């Protein structure tokens, strides 16, 4: 390894992660929403180094069928599209939306989220169970957005979800991990990948998520709503690498007293 490029992807190629049999090097998954325009979306995603991007499914605007589409800026051949069910508040809506997504994209790896009412849009776990069951029966590979509830998370895993994605804080709040203790419990008990999804506000939040042992981090607003999205995308790429490396390295123990870094012998007198 070259100390001059400590955080280059090359350095951690051997430390990728696998979901539903697919292998990825980047542990940063990014959303494609909330950007000023499609060129900014493309530039930020490029800068993030992400290999998976979440996308929404919406009606074509028939009054302007020639308007540019996401695929024209973010090539589905290069990035793995992960269709989501944002805006769905019932299991039925979510299942119907993802069937359309599967037909539009031709793959079955999806992000399920069934949300409670505004303003908090907290995951509705009862409806999420129902939708997950129907989707898995229908052959989907479900990465599921969920509460930081270890019982619910275990049940989703047992149902066959391929990744558990608990929220770190209310979606779009940027408050950072509100409940690291509970997230650690979810990670400890999970045998599928765990991603923190929602709540990340800045780079150190993403680093902390990786340090506690997440397999990857999913975020959107933290980049799209930064003053400079492209710079923040690079910050997040570095933060996820930093947190992962720190997790692998094993942090020093915390001490209350001080402990000098220079030897106390051989002092001049």
């Amino acid at each position: 390894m070259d100390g001059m490029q400590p955080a280059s992807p090359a350095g951690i190629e051997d430390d990728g992660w696998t979901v539903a049999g697919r292998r990825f090097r980047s542990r940063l998954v990014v959303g494609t929403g909330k950007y000023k325009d499609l060129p900014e979306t493309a530039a930020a995603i490029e800068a993030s180094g992400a290999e998976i991007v979440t996308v929404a499914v919406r009606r074509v605007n028939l009054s302007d069928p020639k308007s540019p589409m996401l695929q024209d800026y973010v090539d589905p051949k290069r990035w793995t599209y992960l269709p989501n069910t944002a805006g769905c508040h019932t299991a039925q809506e979510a299942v119907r939306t993802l069937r359309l997504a599967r037909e539009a994209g031709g793959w079955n790896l999806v992000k399920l989220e069934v949300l409670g009412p505004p303003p908090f849009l907290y995951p509705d776990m009862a409806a999420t169970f129902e939708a997950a069951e129907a989707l898995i029966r229908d052959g989907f590979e479900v990465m599921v957005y969920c509460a930081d509830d270890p019982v619910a998370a275990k049940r989703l895993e047992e149902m066959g979800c391929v990744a558990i994605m608990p929220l770190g804080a209310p979606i779009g709040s940027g408050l950072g991990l509100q409940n690291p203790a509970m997230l650690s419990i979810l990670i400890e008990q999970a045998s599928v990948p765990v991603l923190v999804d929602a709540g990340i506000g800045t780079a150190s939040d993403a680093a902390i998520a990786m340090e506690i042992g997440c397999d990857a981090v999913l975020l959107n607003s933290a980049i799209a709503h930064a003053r400079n999205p492209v710079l923040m995308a690079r910050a997040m790429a570095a933060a996820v690498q930093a947190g992962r490396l720190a997790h692998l390295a094993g942090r020093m123990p915390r001490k209350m007293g001080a402990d000098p870094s220079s030897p106390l012998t051989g002092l001049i007198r």
Partner: protein
Amino acid sequence: MLELTLNGEARRLEAPLTVASLLASLGLDTRKVAVERNEEIVPRSRYAETWLAPGDALEIVHFIGGG
């Protein structure tokens, strides 16, 4: 004439009409959209042979930016 609902709006179209010809008339790239007819997916492979009927409810969707 066919009266049907397209992405939630009422439309009157020249009959007979297949999904394929509808998409063509709308100028949509079939590789970038998906079609649902009366809450049933219409597989891309069937566009040419799927004839629309009066009262059909169609949804034509694509991917957009989302988190």
